[in-house]
């Protein structure tokens, strides 16, 4: 494919020399012949490729690849030399003699001390193939390439490479002299004009004011100028008129919307993950808003770039405009816009693919380098060795994504202060409620007995009996019924006895049975002699002083698991010692998350006991959930049922089994909470019967000798409670006991048992609490980057993650790095990467960016390949101009708005589209810029213009995206519920980008697929464009809205027509056009009258005229 450049050729010579040398060192002629693939027949090659190589790759390369020294006894099977040379045991094959070949010995599994591969014997067929292959003389067509692997990047002379134009330092050039200085309005004009004059060409005459206004308004805001803006500009005859317009547009909030979209093209902005189910990416819209704000506030571009890579790590992090959250962290969100597989069979590979996509974007968008070309081999054209690719890849491999609360310290303080107030109120309420358990305990035996007898009497009948009982017996009945399912529940013995009694056993038998069961359980034995597969593994019960093994974000979950429950939290089923609770000190308002460390899912099922509210969301969009995350894919979700008490929920782990996963417990709901008690893995679908041993007081209780009847059992409970309360050393078991012997759902539910004074107090405090709750501000979540397990990676030889080469340090591309760059030893290295990228020593970011701005204003870049400043890209048409702009850019503190001013106020930008004959002959593609070409609007600008002209444009900024309208022609998995046809009239940038359901209208007009960086959209012509503009319901609706507006206007027909032309095309109609439009209106009205009312006919005619204007070529083109 490629003609090797000099460096490549040199590399080939180099490895050829290596090969020669190697050949000389191996004197046997037979071996020498083995080194020559050329002497192998096609048949032999086929045999090797189909029967041998796949087996070697699959089974052997992992240990017997480049790291063979460490793991594989020095034997390398990824190269034919290695095979013959052998490892620590000597040569692995004797060509022609399978009986003498260690390799055959090993794979035959005859010798228990030498069995390969260790993961399991190969199939008989595979073994037979190897025997035959050795018999054939081990024909092996593999090219000797280890020399290349040993010395990555050997062929690239970095010093020489830096001579390439784009890698040279930026030098501010002198301003060229020109023959026609009158034309010069901006320094850039000198560069343009000097170049034209050199070819004896003249610039096109200036564009008219109307053309100019329409051009610059679209350029800066993506919207057409309003008729009023046109009139104002025409009326302003001052020399500063145009400058004022530029300033007005740069100050418009719509400027950021327009230019943010250009940026989003570069970072493959997408709000879903694609693949089979097209799952949502949470918070992607925050990144979109972040970019809009960055452009509107003219954030210095070097600062912006640093935030893209390390916005969470940079010193002097940036706050949001209101100061409530860390704005800069959101810059890193773009790392996670790539595709995500649902069920990768090889998660290591999919991670490598993800990093590759991140690098591809980072390289092309920020540096204009096709970095990803170096994944499998040294870049064939640019000075990027594979080793450098993996140096930067190591930084991204050390970076994880995280759903983080971004609250600023001020915000945290505000939340904490109110939170403390609520905690204080709750503890006051708690104090008032304190007598309740004591009051209840004093009558425990009687109440329990009444409840137990009611249950016994009811037998298997309906549970309506409870409501006929007085409180607190009614609550006790419900409580005991729930206890029946939980062997670790304090009242499980009582309910178990009741069950046995109902089955006709004697009290003694019943008691003995439950005593044995619990004694066994206390010893950790299952009474039903469990099989190996039924052993549960308690992953987490939060029975520890801290959230060790979990990372907390936000304040909802506090700093440690909770033991105490606030009085307004459900007590029901809380016979538990420790909880991860987002209920704070008793308020739903707090938000936050817990994220576990990575672990390998050990068994087939996951069971979670949890409680909480239910806000109705599904999947990752549920605001309260526990999710299992497998390779960036949130594959399983468990949501609280909202029942108010603890329940088990179980999920099958078929796809996630034995995968490296982590768990997230998330509360993003300002009006709800989630409480997790236990997370258990097992191989059975059934909910684990036991996950914590029974309370020892309960076991002791059952061993009392005086238990003869139900009454004696309930009395024993009362005694036990009294004893534990009086015990001088309060331990966890007694705490638990006191809390468990309480039948109400919440402590506050029993407040009616208090005397009137205290009751009133409780009411007042609760009211104060709810007003305090309203003061708690909502937290801001975003999906950002997080340093995680920093490590270097090894080169993936030929891009194969199973074929690992040498480890490379985490550092920047050597060709761009400062002299003697230090490798990263602490953290991921993103901060260092950011610093290297924006370092003054790196000329690329400034050059690349000014070229992008230029391209958007002039239709083509000074470099026509905006994402590729390497050798395969295009060279600059005006190299000095590019450097001049880059210098000005850096001098202006990387202000993009200053570049706009420089370009827009020039004569160059104010040329018309007129092409002189000389120019069209000499330079038909306008490389020298002798005119400003006519250009079609982008998809979004067309839709936004339709809305603006029809009067339906909703100019609201920011916020969560509007679900796209999905037609019957868009089908498939992950299809969202269709959003509104008009998209709420919002600008197109706010329409959700659902990867698998992109708008057909956008796609017809060359909207980019969110796969990688795209600095230059196409401008193609397809019939669907015409079909959409003629027939699509959106466009027709807009024409109708426009018609309605026109119909209700009192103006004269000709004035209305003129207004329509002005709004849609930025120019008044010619007298002929007015006349034509008038007769059209008349004709259409008459046609419509055949089947419509006079009003409908008039409306139809005006709508038709509007529709025609929206379809006119002038509408979708700018001059």
């Amino acid at each position, binding site marked *: 494919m490629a003609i090797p450049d000099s460096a490549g050729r040199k590399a080939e010579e180099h490895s050829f020399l290596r090969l020669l040398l190697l050949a000389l060192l191996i004197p046997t002629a037979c071996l020498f012949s083995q080194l020559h693939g050329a002497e192998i027949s096609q048949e032999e090659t086929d045999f090797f490729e189909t029967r041998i190589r796949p087996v070697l790759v699959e089974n052997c390369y992992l240990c017997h690849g480049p790291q063979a020294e460490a793991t594989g006894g020095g034997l390398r099977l990824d190269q034919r030399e290695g095979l013959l040379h052998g490892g620590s045991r000597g040569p692995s094959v004797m060509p022609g003699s399978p009986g003498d070949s260690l390799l055959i010995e090993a794979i035959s599994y005859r010798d228990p001390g030498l069995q390969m591969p260790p993961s399991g014997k190969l199939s008989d067929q595979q073994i037979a193939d190897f025997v035959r292959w050795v018999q054939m003389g081990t024909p092996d067509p593999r090219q000797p390439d280890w020399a290349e692997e040993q010395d990555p990047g050997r062929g690239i002379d970095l010093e020489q490479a830096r001579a390439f134009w784009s890698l040279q330092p930026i030098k501010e050039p002198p301003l060229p002299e020109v023959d026609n200085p009158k034309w010069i309005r901006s320094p850039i004009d000198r560069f343009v004009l000097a170049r034209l004059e050199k070819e004896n060409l003249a610039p096109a005459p200036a564009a008219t004011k109307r053309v100019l206004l329409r051009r610059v308004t679209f350029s800066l805001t993506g919207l057409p100028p309003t008729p009023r803006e046109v009139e104002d500009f025409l009326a302003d005859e001052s020399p500063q008129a145009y400058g004022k317009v530029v300033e007005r547009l740069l100050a418009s909030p719509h400027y950021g919307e327009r230019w943010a979209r250009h940026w989003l093209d570069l970072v493959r902005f997408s709000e879903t993950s694609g693949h089979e189910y097209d799952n949502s990416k949470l918070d992607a819209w925050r990144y979109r808003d972040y970019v809009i704000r960055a452009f509107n506030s003219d954030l210095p571009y070097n600062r912006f770039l640093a935030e893209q890579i390390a916005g969470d790590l940079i010193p002097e992090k940036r706050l949001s405009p209101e100061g409530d959250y860390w704005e800069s962290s959101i810059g890193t969100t773009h790392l996670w816009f790539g*595709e995500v597989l649902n069920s990768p069979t090889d998660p290591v590979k999919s991670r490598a693919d993800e990093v590759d996509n991140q690098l591809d974007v980072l390289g092309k968008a920020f540096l204009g380098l096709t970095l990803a070309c170096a994944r499998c081999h040294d870049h064939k054209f640019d000075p990027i060795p594979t080793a450098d690719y993996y140096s930067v890849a190591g930084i991204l491999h050390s970076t994880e994504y995280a759903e983080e609360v971004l609250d600023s310290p001020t915000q945290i303080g505000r939340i904490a202060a109110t939170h403390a107030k609520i905690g204080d109120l709750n503890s006051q309420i708690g104090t008032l409620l304190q007598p309740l358990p004591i009051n209840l305990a004093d009558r425990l035996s009687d109440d329990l007995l009444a409840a137990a007898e009611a249950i016994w009497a009811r037998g298997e009948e309906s549970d309506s009996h409870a409501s006929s009982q007085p409180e607190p017996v009614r609550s006790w009945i419900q409580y005991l019924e729930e206890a029946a399912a939980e062997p670790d529940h304090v009242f499980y013995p009582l309910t178990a006895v009741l069950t046995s009694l109902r089955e006709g056993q004697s009290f003694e038998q019943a008691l003995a049975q439950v005593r044995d069961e619990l004694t066994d359980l206390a010893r950790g034995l299952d009474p039903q002699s469990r099989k190996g597969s039924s052993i549960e593994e308690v992953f987490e019960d939060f029975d520890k002083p801290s959230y060790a093994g979990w990372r907390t974000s936000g304040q909802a979950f506090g700093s440690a698991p909770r033991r105490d429950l606030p009085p307004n939290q459900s007590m029901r089923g809380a016979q538990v010692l420790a909880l991860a609770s987002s209920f704070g000190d008793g308020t739903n308002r707090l938000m936050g998350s817990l994220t576990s460390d990575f672990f390998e899912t050990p068994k087939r099922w996951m069971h979670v006991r949890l409680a909480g509210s239910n806000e109705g969301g599904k999947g990752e969009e549920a605001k309260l959930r526990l999710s299992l995350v497998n390779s960036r894919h949130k594959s399983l979700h468990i949501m609280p049922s909202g029942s108010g008490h603890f329940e088990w929920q179980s999920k099958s782990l078929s796809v996630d089994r034995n995968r490296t996963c982590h768990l997230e417990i998330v509360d993003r709901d300002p009006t709800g909470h989630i409480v997790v008690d236990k997370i258990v893995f097992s191989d059975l679908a059934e909910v684990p019967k036991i996950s914590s041993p029974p309370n020892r007081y309960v076991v002791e209780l059952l061993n009392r000798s005086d238990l003869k009847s139900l009454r004696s059992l309930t009395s024993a409970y009362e005694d036990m409670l009294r004893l534990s309360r009086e015990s001088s050393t309060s331990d966890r078991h007694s705490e638990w006991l006191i809390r468990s012997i309480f039948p109400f759902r919440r402590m506050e539910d029993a407040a009616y048992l208090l005397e009137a004074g205290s009751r009133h107090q409780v009411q007042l405090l609760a009211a104060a609490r709810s007003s305090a709750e309203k003061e708690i501000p909502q937290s801001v979540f975003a999906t950002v980057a997080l340093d995680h397990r920093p490590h270097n990676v090894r080169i993936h030889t030929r891009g194969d993650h199973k074929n690992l080469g040498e480890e490379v340090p985490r550092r920047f591309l050597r060709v761009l790095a400062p002299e003697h760059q230090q490798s990263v030893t602490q953290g991921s290295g993103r901060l260092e990467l950011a610093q290297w990228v924006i370092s003054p020593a790196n000329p690329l970011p400034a050059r690349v960016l000014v070229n992008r701005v230029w391209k958007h204003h002039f239709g083509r870049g000074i470099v026509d390949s905006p994402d590729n400043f390497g050798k395969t890209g295009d060279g600059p048409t005006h190299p000095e101009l590019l450097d001049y702009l880059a210098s000005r850019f850096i001098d202006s503190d990387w202000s993009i708005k200053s570049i706009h001013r420089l370009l827009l106020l020039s004569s160059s930008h104010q040329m018309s589209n007129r092409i002189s004959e000389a120019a069209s002959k000499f330079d038909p593609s306008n490389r020298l810029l002798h005119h400003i070409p006519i250009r079609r609007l982008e998809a979004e600008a067309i839709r936004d213009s339709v809305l603006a002209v029809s009067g339906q444009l909703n100019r609201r900024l920011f916020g969560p995206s509007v679900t796209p309208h999905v037609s019957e022609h868009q089908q498939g998995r992950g299809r969202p519920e269709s959003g509104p046809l008009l998209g709420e009239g919002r600008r197109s940038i706010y329409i959700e980008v659902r990867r698998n359901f992109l708008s057909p209208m956008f796609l017809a007009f060359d909207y980019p697929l969110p796969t990688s*960086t795209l600095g230059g959209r196409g401008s193609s012509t397809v019939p669907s464009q015409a079909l959409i503009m003629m027939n699509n319901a959106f466009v027709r609706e807009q024409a109708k809205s426009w018609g309605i507006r026109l119909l209700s206007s009192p103006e004269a027909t000709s004035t209305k027509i003129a207004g329509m032309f002005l709004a849609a095309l930025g120019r008044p109609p010619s007298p002929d056009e007015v006349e034509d439009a008038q007769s059209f209106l008349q004709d259409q009205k008459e046609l419509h009258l055949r089947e419509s009312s006079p009003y409908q006919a008039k409306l139809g005619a005006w709508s038709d005229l509007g529709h025609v204007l929206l379809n006119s070529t002038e509408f979708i083109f700018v001059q």
Partner: protein
Amino acid sequence: MSRNQIDTLATTVSRREWLFRSANGFGGLALLAMLSDAALGSTAQSSRSVDPLRVRTPHHPARVKSVIFLFMDGGPSQMDTFDPKPRLTQEHLQPISMKTPTTVFNISNKVLASPFQFKQYGECGAPVSDLFPHVATCVDDLTIVRSLVADHSEHTAANYFMHTGSGFQGRPSVGSWLTYGLGSESRNLPGFIVLENGLIPPGGADVFGNGFLPASYQGTLFRAGKHPVADLEPAESAPELQRRKLDLLGRLNRSALDRLGPNTQLEATIANYELAFRMQVEVPDLLDLSGESETIRKLYGLDEDDTEEFGRSCLLARRMVQRGVRFIELLTPLRKGQDRWDQHRNLEEGHRTNARATDKPIAGLLKDLKSLGMLDETLVLWGGEFGRTPTAQIGKNIEEVGRDHNPHGFTMWLAGGGFKGGLTHGATDEYGYYAVENRVPVHDLHATILHQLGLDHEKLTFHYSGRDMRLTDVHGNVIRDLLA
């Protein structure tokens, strides 16, 4: 300037000639304006990009004009269709005695016998299971490739791979590459059409996307039912209403062109309206099967409930070939209770249902093309994104047994288009898990298809992202053994 196909393969059709080609639509005034002397002054450079779909000269003489891809979404099982494996029956529900790869569900390693019976057919004696009694009668026209190898075990990535040669989103589909390379012989229809019956494969519309190629080459989706093409039908209640709108539009555009000077992009946009207008006329005509004889309708199974849907698609495909459409893809019809050919459960019932819906129509298509003398110039390709495992995926009970995904060795067949009829190529191992003989990577299949259309897969490139991109990436060999 650009290194891409539009320029390198340019057989410069003059702009006037091209405009005449499209001269019978609406808005004759607009056309006249464009043909005026003033409008003809544009440069040679710009005239090249006017019609992206004009017919281009291939790299070498083409054997095939059109391709019909019968895409069996979900992955039909090779050992239950065209690749019988007696060993599966012998070892039914025994642990498989070979090393197996990680699969998507990774549930079972027990061998599963095929529930279907095989018989040999035709002169070539190729075995076909009882799923396809009709297609079986055409085996002497089929090239059965039993050794396809793909790279991905997951539907979406596998669908992208089968269509675009890459497992990632955003690459051009084969149909896009073909129309990019060859243009379209159809004046009034898109060059690349996908016919669906309510079932879009995982990966969505991007499976038929133009990727980085210009939007002109994107696949157009035709849905079954009343509104086959999005936004095709005029919304106006009377044709005259639309007519007058288009006339006014023509006049406005003419005046714009007068004022803005000659500009190919503007002209192309104007002409584009003509094509869209002709499509409005052509598509209903294409879809109107009333002119087809009763014999033909029966041949395609239009008279039976099970086969009516897919039969209609097959017959439409033939009609599209006759109208010069370059690449037609037919998607698996939606069957109640079945998840495409993706039988992780209920293999027998699922495969029978899908086969019943498609077998007769496919055989009808092959026979019809043959009798019309069109099979030579038309390539028909049948297959899914991967095959299935010889091992069982056992759900709640053994009756519900199915098979998991398997890209390591599976079957596709080709018919017509200069392929050798009656040939069986390649083989899988004794279980049917891996292709072991004459392995055919998907890239090779792509290279061979392009070859038959006159395109060299190494020369058909588009410069993007710093590289000359190809359908076959850096891989692909034309498999000459398959060619007659």
